[in-house]
């Protein structure tokens, strides 16, 4: 009969939550909204093309390179300008030519350009004469990182072609000189030209699927990723799902305090209902609520963001672990609050701090410092996140037994501590 009473208490609580648009928005709307925000941030205008939209970087090129008849009219600087203005790079770079370095730098300072590239006067001369070296300057807005990194990569590859030619000629010249053989400039130019031709061929191979020296394979995931954005959305939503599950569980447990303040709980105690049955009812309501939240969010996100959560049994295990630990922890957390005002503060503060330490707000980052990973393992959120990340990577059920086991133990301990405190308080 106690079970029936517990179920009645649970049903009453669940009905109250279901009737509250506010609770529903916080349970489902907030995590989906935050994920959508980030998904939208890194996707194209349509949001569904499956890849990141790289920003078009506005580059002002200052070509100070001086060429003379001695180099056959060739200008390395001009070749670089044409490369940056080529059709193949038009979706990445918007390159315009500036008159001088000062005006290009000023354009970047005014944020009229993202990057200024200054080609030195001696670029061609250094390429064709022995010894020496020169440096191009990439001047960029300090708040930008992606665009300048792309430009840097392209130019570095371009310059490596010139460097390689020069190195080939100089190594030859040096070795011939060591053996006392004459170093004919035309021979050196021939070596450099042959190298340049070879570098161009290899460059094409490197850009194609047939790399001359690399055999690339993806780490063997058990679930094929749908696309980069879905991958990112999966990690972010896992973090949000955990954060809001803990929040929902704590908010549900807060009903004990609210009912105490509203005097409905003391009234309930006057009925022949054991306190344990009431607490059990509260626990059941919270458990069902968080379970419903997890199920709805995983299904909705799979449909909206095309997230592949992993193998069904693995997902079921990590969901069970999350629901158990958030329910237990919610009760434990609320046992510290004396009033509903305090409960709100404790909930907001503790869950945010633990979420931060548990890696819920950095779940989209690929490589984290080791300290963060270590700190995360001291929090239930960190272990829950570990399980969900494994599931997203396609882990087998056996692979998630450790994180699921840890969160179940944490959930049981925190539930016992919370229930004990409430029993004493309500005695």
């Amino acid at each position, binding site marked *: 009969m106690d079970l029936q009473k517990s179920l009645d208490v649970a049903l009453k609580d669940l009905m109250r939550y279901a009737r509250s648009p506010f609770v529903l928005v916080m349970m489902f709307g907030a995590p989906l909204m935050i994920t959508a*925000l980030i998904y939208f941030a890194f996707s194209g205008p349509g949001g569904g093309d499956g890849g990141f*939209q790289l920003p078009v970087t506005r580059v002002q090129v200052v070509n100070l390179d001086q060429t003379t008849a001695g180099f056959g009219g060739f200008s390395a600087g001009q070749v670089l300008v044409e490369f940056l203005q080529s059709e193949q790079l038009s979706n990445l770079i918007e390159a315009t030519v500036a008159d001088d370095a000062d005006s290009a730098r000023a354009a970047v300072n005014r944020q009229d350009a993202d990057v200024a590239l200054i080609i030195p006067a001696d670029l061609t001369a250094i390429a064709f004469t022995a010894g020496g070296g020169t440096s191009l300057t990439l001047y960029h807005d300090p708040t*930008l990182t*992606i665009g300048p990194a792309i430009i840097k990569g392209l130019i570095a590859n371009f310059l*490596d072609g010139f460097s390689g030619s020069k*190195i080939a000629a100089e*190594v030859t010249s040096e070795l011939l000189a060591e053996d006392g053989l004459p170093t004919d400039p035309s021979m050196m130019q021939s070596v450099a030209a*042959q190298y340049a031709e070879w570098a161009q061929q*290899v460059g094409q191979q490197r850009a194609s699927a047939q790399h001359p020296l690399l055999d690339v394979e993806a780490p063997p995931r058990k679930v094929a990723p749908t696309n980069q954005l879905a991958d990112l959305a999966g990690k972010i939503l896992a973090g949000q799902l955990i954060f809001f599950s803990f929040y929902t569980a704590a908010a549900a447990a807060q009903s004990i305090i609210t009912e105490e303040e509203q005097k409905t709980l003391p009234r309930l105690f006057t009925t022949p209902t054991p306190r344990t049955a009431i607490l059990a009812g509260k626990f059941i309501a919270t458990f069902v609520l968080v379970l419903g939240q997890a199920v709805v969010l995983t299904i909705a996100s799979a449909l909206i963001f095309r997230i592949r959560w992993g193998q069904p049994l693995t997902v079921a295990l990590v969901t069970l672990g999350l629901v158990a630990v958030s329910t237990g922890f919610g009760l434990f957390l609320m046992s510290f609050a004396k009033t509903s005002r305090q409960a709100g*503060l404790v909930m907001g503060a503790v869950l945010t701090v633990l979420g931060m330490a548990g890696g819920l707000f950095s779940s989209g980052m690929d490589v984290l410092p080791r300290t963060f990973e270590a700190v995360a393992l001291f929090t239930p959120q960190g272990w829950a996140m570990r399980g969900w990340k494994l599931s997203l990577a396609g882990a087998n059920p056996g692979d998630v037994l450790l994180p699921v086991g840890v969160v179940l133990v944490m959930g049981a301990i925190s539930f016992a501590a919370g229930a004990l405190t409430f029993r004493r308080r309500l005695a």
Partner: protein
Amino acid sequence: MRIVDLALKDLSQILRDRKVAALLVLMPIGFTVFFSMLFGGGGSAGEADPRLPIGWIDRDIGSAPGPLLRLLEASDAVRPVVLDEKGSQTAVGQVLDGKLAAVVTVPMGFQQLLWTEAPAKLQVTVDENSAAGQTAYGAIDMAVARLLGAVESARLSAEAFETSGGFFDDASRQAYLDDAFSKAINAWQDPPFTLAVEQASVAASEGEGEFEGNAQASPGLLVQFAIWSLIMSGSTVVLERTTGAMQRLLTTPIRRWQIIAGHALGMFSLTVAQELLLLAFGQFALGVDYLRQPVAILLVAVALALWVVGLGMLIGALAETDTHVMMYSLLAMFLFTGLGGAWFPLEGTGAAFQAIGRLTPTYWAMLGFQNVILRGMGLSSVLTSVAILLAYAVLFFGLAVWRFRFE
């Protein structure tokens, strides 16, 4: 005077609770430190190697550590981590876990076959769907191109030598090739054509203002926690209304507008105090140079606080319970900070997102702060930001007054 009294009452009500005070001080500082470390600032430059770790498994037994390893070690994007037998077994798992950005496996006979028409290929395990994986692949590809370039240089050099004099035998040819290859590899450690990267900033030119995580995290978290503080200050308005204290106030000679102004002043004081604390923490603990233009920074901080007050009053007007205040504040915080570039720079986001982001007050606050601390600009560079923030403050405050309920 009544306005000040009411504001002081609000402040004393909020700060009386030590837990609340801790939330207002410790949480923002904790978050700022956390995110500055996460974004790579770490508080002190050069403390750790920021390059992406890639695993290095050498199965080319008998050969000395290869020239490729040297080329990779010279990379500014990746740092090879030589894995032992045990590490090799878990290497792929480490890529999956994000502990390694990639793994390079050198096959048996790699160095020997490098000179043949059919060289043994390096096995690279990398998740090209991840940003770290793409960066790592780019760096590996560049190092490999230089390695191949060194081989080609040696070949071309040997051909030139043969034209000039010729080799006595195969052994002398091989010795020449080895020597040329070694010289080419050495030359690649300091290539003749390089790219110098400079940041457009007065701070950078003075050698102290490199873009670090701190310059994103410190103002970003300041903006975020200015909104976060509404959890406390917004709830005082709701509490006063729900307990009937506001109704009781109305029976006194205080006017309605004075009640609103008093609460607004309380919120403003709290927000500005928290901002000043975070600015001081950023300046002295994280090395973010807010004091470069103190007046400009103060203007942005005050304008931001005024907008936050407008938002707080609106939340106070709309919320019915403490929990509502907390959730409205959290939602506003997530939305405005996410869209406005306080969490991550808008640079990497799509065009539509950027356009929407620029409509948020938080974007203008970030722009104002970063114009000073990153771009090294002066007072005039923050005036647009301040004007827009003030306009938003008027808009939100107007909405709050319109929707304000005293009962």
